[in-house]
Each structure stands twice: as structure tokens, then as C-alpha cells.
């Protein structure tokens, strides 16, 4: 097959693969069939497996409980790629409020819910040269959540 033909087939396949995603919900949430402590380990491992470094885990439940509000475990995991965060924050200051990336993890009885968004909201507001990065973040979020969910199956 010649180059242009391969491109045509690849484009058609890509289009087909993206069709459901174009309609899919931009908020991604999975249920991990495991307790919070294990699920947090699975999420953090999946984040690192995807090539990111965890910068911080915000213990939201700690703040809530210490101010008299009852809640089960509720944490926010922040992460990024060192070179990418430094470069993007410098080149596109408007992107800085979204960096580092984050995933929310909270307990629901014996299970754990993990939540992220696919960052597509950003596409309309940032130049097209950033779109591949934004799309990769979305794909990485889905991959991280799916990996953590599969690891968590009891």
C-alpha cells in the first residue's frame, strides 16, 4: 500500500475509533472493587506507570473531619511530568491553573471511586498546537483509571 493509501486507511480507522469518544462523557469515573488504602496504591502505581511523577496527595477528609464534618477517605492526587509542566507553564501561562494534573479518590463503603476529567474543555481555549498534549492527558487519564480498576479487582 502506498503512503497516501495508508494515511487514508489510518485516518478512517482513527475517525471510527474516535466516534464514540466524541460523544462520551468528559468526566471519567470508575469504581475500584477494593478498599481505599489498596485503591490509592493502585492509582498511584498507575499514575507512575503512565510516566508521571506524583507531587502531592491532598487529604481532604483530614481537613473536613478536623472541622467537624463527617466523611470517609477523600483524597486528591496531583501529578505531572517535570519537563512538561515547566515548559507548558512557561510557554502558556494560561494553562498554569490546570497544572499539575489531578485525580480524585474517595471511599464508598468497601469500594473506592476514582474520578478525573479528560481536559477537553481546554481545547477551545488554547491554541491548536496544544491539542495533542490535551488529548494525550485525556487518554492518559482513561488509561490510569482503567489500569487502577483492573488491578483492583478482588
Amino acid at each position: 500500500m502506498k503512503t497516501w493509501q495508508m494515511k487514508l486507511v489510518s485516518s478512517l480507522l482513527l475517525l471510527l475509533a474516535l466516534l464514540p469518544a466524541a460523544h462520551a462523557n468528559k468526566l471519567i469515573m470508575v469504581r475500584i472493587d477494593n478498599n481505599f488504602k489498596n485503591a490509592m496504591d493502585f492509582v498511584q502505581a498507575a499514575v507512575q506507570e503512565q510516566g508521571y511523577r506524583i507531587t502531592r496527595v491532598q487529604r481532604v477528609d483530614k481537613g473536613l473531619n478536623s472541622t467537624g464534618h463527617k466523611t470517609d477517605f477523600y483524597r486528591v492526587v496531583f501529578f505531572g511530568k517535570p519537563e512538561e509542566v515547566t515548559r507548558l507553564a512557561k510557554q502558556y501561562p494560561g494553562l498554569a491553573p490546570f497544572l499539575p494534573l489531578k485525580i480524585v479518590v474517595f471511599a464508598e463503603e468497601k469500594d473506592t471511586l476514582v474520578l478525573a476529567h479528560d481536559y477537553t474543555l481546554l481545547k477551545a481555549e488554547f491554541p491548536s498546537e496544544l491539542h495533542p498534549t490535551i488529548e494525550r492527558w485525556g487518554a492518559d487519564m482513561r488509561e490510569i483509571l482503567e489500569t487502577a480498576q483492573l488491578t483492583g479487582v478482588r
Partner: protein
Amino acid sequence: MPNTLEITKTTAATAIILLGLVFSATARADDGEALFQQHCAACHGKDGRGGVGVPLALPAFINSVDDRYLRESIRLGRPGRVMPAFGYLGEKKIDALVDHMRSWTGKRVAAFPTATVKGNAVKGAKLYATYCTACHGANGEGSKGTGVTFSRPRNLPVLAPALNNSGFLASATDAMIKNTLIKGRQGSPMVSFTKSAGLNEQDINNLVAHVRSFPGKVRPEITAANAGPLVIERDSPYDFKTTVNNIKNALPSYNLVLIREQALDQGLASKGKENKNQTIIYSCGFHMLNEALKVDPRVGLFLPCRITIVQLADKVKVMAVNPKRMSALFNNEELDRLCDRMRQTYTDLMEEALL
């Protein structure tokens, strides 16, 4: 240029690949359980016993609604009430989901007639005010607190549904609403109104007519035009250090507690080599957060409250993600209102700090 034979071969190869994909998608569509785990279990629980979403497996629910109701509810969702529309899945997958849900009790439910129940909506409104408003709201808006989850103290895994929701009204037939009013839903606060309140069939018909008269609430789309830009930003008239201090000092006026101040690349850059010209100020208003979590347990995506300050070549910029724009992701009208409040808080705080 390619010759005709090459084009034909390419087209044939493409068609074969596309057909293969279509067939494999069809095969996957049969697996209702896998689809349920993929699209529904996060909210409704892996066995459908509820969580962020309602307990679909409750026998008194699943055995009293017909396939049309389930199918349309999946397809249309509940605009503004968390449940997204899954119409993009297509008919086959939605049917497979319904089949899977039926497997929980193994019971098939006969389709309800689609004919209009004849009743007097005006008389129904009076009955509604007496018997239904307490749970379903004066205008059928449903009970407050869409942010149900077992992660927080909770009495029941159910919420009174929003009867005025366009998704509900398009999914439920008059006959199904009538049946629910007559039989109630065991295991939920919904009682039989013929037994508990002594209503007769005409009263029930009048109630159905009143519910059917609700206008069918649709959630307005959130866009840059009505919610502002994705990032709230202001140029500071002060130098970087003063700007950071002014923002921190303004927090208490808005019931926000400073959690920490950090370089944007903290934890990414080597220690001591962080960019000192990009700072994040994290804060939290725990009472407001608690209220927000009652409305939607997914608000963690906004947490903690955050203001980013960056030194550019010629100015200092102060920024925060606009919560009102972000709320577009959540399909939760109660949350939209809180996000608007938070947008105003960020705006006021920045203006006060940068006066």
C-alpha cells in the same frame, strides 16, 4: 498517481477492516454486564445497589418499571440531575444494558400502555401539594442533595426523583406513573397512595395529569457566553511578592483558610530549583466544601480552592479556574449554583487583593 486497481484494493481492504470493526462492536454490545460495569457501576454500584446513583436493583423499582422506561432513561439521562445521557451508546448496547438489569431479579415487566391517562390537572395540583410536595418539591424539582454517596452519612440510598425533569417525563408513561402512585415502592419512602392516603382512581388520574403538565425542565447549556472564560484572570498592579501576600491576606474575608503556598513545579523540579515566579496558593472553606459535597461528591475535581500567580515578562498575572465553566462536566444544576457562587468568590477575592 495511483491506478484504479490500487484504489479498488485499498477500498476493499478498508471496507473489510471497517466491517470487522462493526462486527466486533456488535459482539461486544451483547455483553450487558460488561457494559454496565463500564458505564454504570461507578455510580450505581457493581450490583446496582446504589451509591452516587439510585439503587436500580431494588426489586420494588426494577420490577415496576418497563423496558421502555429503562431504555429511555439511559438514552436521555436526567438533565441537570447527575445522570448523563448515554444515547451515544446506540440501541443495541442500551438493550443489552436493560437485559442485564433485568437479570438481577429475572423478572420481565409487561410494557405499560402509552395512552394518556385522562385526569384533571387542576384538581391534581391540589392533591400534589398535599401528598407529594414534601418529597418531590412544589414544582416537581425532586429532593435536594444530589450528592449522595455512601462515603458520607446517609439514611437512604434513594432520592425523590425530579418529576419535572425532561428525561423523566420522556421516559415514564402515564400508566407507569399511575402504577407507581397506586403500588408505591417498597424499600423507599414512596408509599401507595390508595392505601396510605385513601385516594381513589380518579384522584390518581388527576395526579398523573398534574405531573404530566410539568413543563419538562432542561438544563441550560453552560458556555463561555453565559459562564465566562475558562480561567478567571487579573493583571496585578503590584510586584509578585506583594501580590502573593495580598491574595493570602484576602482569604479570611471569604471564609477561606490558607492550606499552603507552593511553587507550581514543587515536587517536580529538584528541591531548591523550583521556579519562584510561579506560585500556587491553596485554600479551603471547609463549611462550603461540606455543603458542596452534599450536592455532589465529585467536587474533588475543584479541590482545594486554588489561585495561581505567575510573573510574566511585563506583569504579574493572577488566575483561577472558573468553577462555573467546569460545572458543565457534572450535569448537576444544584452544583451549577454553588459553582457560580465560587466563581464570584474568586472574582471578588482577586479584586480586593489587587485594589
